């Protein structure tokens, strides 16, 4: 690799913005475009969250009407799920990292990759257009018959956005599967794959199998709305519950689509900053496979109270409890990776350890509670579930995204972020997460339903605490985004491998050249090798590859 790095780069001709970005088929640029677009939508979705929390400062509908509130929380959830977390992980991170981590020059289908991004972009535009023409108001779940009867074009925009983003997701999944199967560098066996690649490979299969069910659900919804079909019209033989089955057949795997690649990020960050090989490589890789498989057998746990007989929930309760096992296996392996390590408190490690593990486990544990049929009878559709999903998606997925952003930032930009602002952003996020989402457990236990603009006055105290927490998160988001934007232009320049990491993306320049590697690397070992002291090895770091 030394020889490769020293080769002079021929300076390419400067390209116009359109040629350089809009027409690009380079997986790294497409990844960056996914990332920038996701951050934009993260700000939009976050703004809706702050509007929702502001309304909930008082028990009555003081700030906005119930109708407007419903539109706000629908936009918040839809944007965060479909335009932020999934594209951030499977668009931005997977696109940028998978080819380079397996030693390839690009994705298997670079043009289809560009198409995936632009479809996602178009889907995002549909969501934004609905702000002008009328926002959807039926929640991100859009259950019929309410979503059929809902007036205005909001739901139609929502269906269009889901369709287009779903197609983008399917194309992206095919690309990742084929890339991992066909494009690995010589010697990059499956058991030498970085764990992030394992996680995206599993996730891509889930996207491929689950997304068509969602497309079916929203298509029939659109037909019922405008062409007088009766898929969900009970008075004419339709069945509203069928929509829920189709929706959750996608959307429960979608929860894993949002967390498995995030686990992959953690499996990269923790060993590097513990200066130690990952503990239990095979256990972590195959527990992702187990989650991917079991994830298709738990969907009806969203429907325990939806009209199935209670005992029909029992198999789904057992599968939902069992799927917690591979997740806990990962947690213990990450902890064991830190055990006897030499842990560095860098910003990505703070997000990965205290931020992610410390918060996400609360969501994991509350998940086992709502998985139990008798307990879900009480907690379903209350704020307890809101707390659960936000500990999974914010304490989990978003913390991992932040860990990944700070970890790969020097690779993507060739510059280092501002460390002090990085820590500030971390602490605001860590504290904000607990203050915002922990009180929601208590409200849910007490029986406060979700999706309500006004609530019983006795619930005000904890709602106000949660709202204050959400403002802390808002400030944290500004600090983090400002840090990254500023540092991308003015940060201190860094070399190819500031973290002394071993995966292949760190063995090329920062930022990498368009073709990733001047010479396709030959892989002879796992990236998770032990670290040795420089005076023992005689080098600043052991030679990779």
């Amino acid at each position, binding site marked *: 690799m030394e020889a490769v790095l020293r080769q002079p780069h021929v300076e390419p001709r400067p390209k116009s913005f359109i040629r350089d970005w809009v027409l690009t088929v380079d997986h790294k640029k497409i990844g960056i475009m996914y990332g920038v677009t996701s951050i934009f939508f993260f700000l939009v979705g976050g703004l809706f969250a702050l509007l929702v929390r502001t309304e909930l400062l008082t028990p009555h509908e003081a700030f906005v009407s119930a109708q407007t509130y*419903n539109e706000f929380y629908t936009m918040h959830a839809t944007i965060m799920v479909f335009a932020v977390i999934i594209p951030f992980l499977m668009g931005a991170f997977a696109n940028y990292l998978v080819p380079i981590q397996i030693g390839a020059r690009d994705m298997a289908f670079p043009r289809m990759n560009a198409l995936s991004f632009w479809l996602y972009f178009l889907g995002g535009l549909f969501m934004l257009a609905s702000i002008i023409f009328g926002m959807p108001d039926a929640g991100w779940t859009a259950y019929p*018959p309410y979503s059929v009867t809902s007036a205005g074009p909001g739901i139609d925009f929502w269906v269009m956005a889901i369709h287009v983003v779903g197609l983008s997701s399917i194309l992206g999944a095919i690309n990742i599967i084929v890339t991992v199967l066909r494009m690995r560098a010589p010697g990059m066996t499956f058991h030498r794959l970085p764990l992030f690649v394992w996680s995206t490979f599993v996730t891509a299969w889930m996207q491929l199998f689950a997304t068509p069910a969602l497309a079916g659900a929203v298509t029939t919804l659109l037909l019922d709305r405008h062409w007088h079909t009766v898929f969900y019209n009970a008075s004419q033989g339709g069945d509203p519950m069928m929509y829920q089955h189709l929706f959750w057949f996608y959307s429960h795997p979608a929860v894993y689509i949002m967390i498995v690649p995030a686990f992959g990020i953690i499996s990269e960050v923790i060993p590097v900053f513990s200066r130690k*090989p*990952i503990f239990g490589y095979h256990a972590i890789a195959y527990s992702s496979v187990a989650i991917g498989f079991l994830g298709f057998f738990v969907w009806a746990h969203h429907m325990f109270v939806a009209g199935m007989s209670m005992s029909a929930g029992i198999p789904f309760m057992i599968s939902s409890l069992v799927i917690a096992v591979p997740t806990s296996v990962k947690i213990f392996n990450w902890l064991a990776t*830190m055990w006897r*390590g030499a842990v560095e*408190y860098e910003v990505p490690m703070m997000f990965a350890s205290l931020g992610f593990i410390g918060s996400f486990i609360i969501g994991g544990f509350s998940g086992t509670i709502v998985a139990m049929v008798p307990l879900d009878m009480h907690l379903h559709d209350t704020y307890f579930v809101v707390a659960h999903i936000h500990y999974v998606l914010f304490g989990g997925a978003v913390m991992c995204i932040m860990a990944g952003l700070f970890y790969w930032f020097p690779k993507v930009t060739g510059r280092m972020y501002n460390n002090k602002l990085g820590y500030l952003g971390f602490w605001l996020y860590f504290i904000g997460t607990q203050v915002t989402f922990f009180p929601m457990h208590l409200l849910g236990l007490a029986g406060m339903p979700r999706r309500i603009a006004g609530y019983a006055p006795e619930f005000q105290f904890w709602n106000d605490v949660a709202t204050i927490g959400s403002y802390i998160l808002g400030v944290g988001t500004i600090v983090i985004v400002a840090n990254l934007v500023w540092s991308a232009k003015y940060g201190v320049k860094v070399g190819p491998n500031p973290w002394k990491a071993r995966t292949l993306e760190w063995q090329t320049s920062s930022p990498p050249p368009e073709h990733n590697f001047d010479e396709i690397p030959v892989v002879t070992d796992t990236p998770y090798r032990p670290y040795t002291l420089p005076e023992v090895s005689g080098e600043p770091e052991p030679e990779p590859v």
Partner: protein
Amino acid sequence: MGNQATHTSWLPIELTPMAHDVDTLFYIMLGIVTFFFVLVEVLLITFLIRYRRTRTNRVGANVHGSNLLETIWTAVPAIILVFMGAFSIHYVYALQVPPAQKYVIQVTGHEWYWEFKYPNGVDVQTTFEVPAGQNVLFDITSADVIHGFYIPAVRVQQDALPGRRTQFWMNASTDSIGQTFPVPCDQFCGPGHPAMVAYMKVVSEDEFNRWLNAQLQKQKAGS
């Protein structure tokens, strides 16, 4: 609703023996997850501090894994979770199967109020009464979109769907006579959703019969 029984940051009062059983199951689960929560957080913080990088601890140990540990931390959670799932099955059937002797109240969700029909023809909205110490079965449906019939004090909810009947039963404790309990709609149903709350008053059997008769007279006089 001066005499409303609500807690603001923990489980509401237990209106039925079943609610007490469900709470017991909740506290068992809470105990288990709290144990593992404390375990993980303590290990996390300990490892972060104990194994931080210092001048004398510059690289981590050469450890790749342990099959024994993997087996332990796969098997132990799996056994506990499957056991808890299996343990809770009898609660599911206890909730699902109503006793033979029961008093049936027809519940219908509307945009945006609850309607209650009693066997003698009494038809009321929003505020309703139930007899303490009797098995009451709610037979639930919807006239329009999906609603959720939820009594937090009973720890049970069932969605109200058009074209489908759902049910649950309860036996309100006589200790709660005279108290009123909120019955919020728990499935999003439109702009009226937050205001779609019914109030259930638990009364003695005598009082319940008096109330039913009074309602019936009122209804006849009105029609």
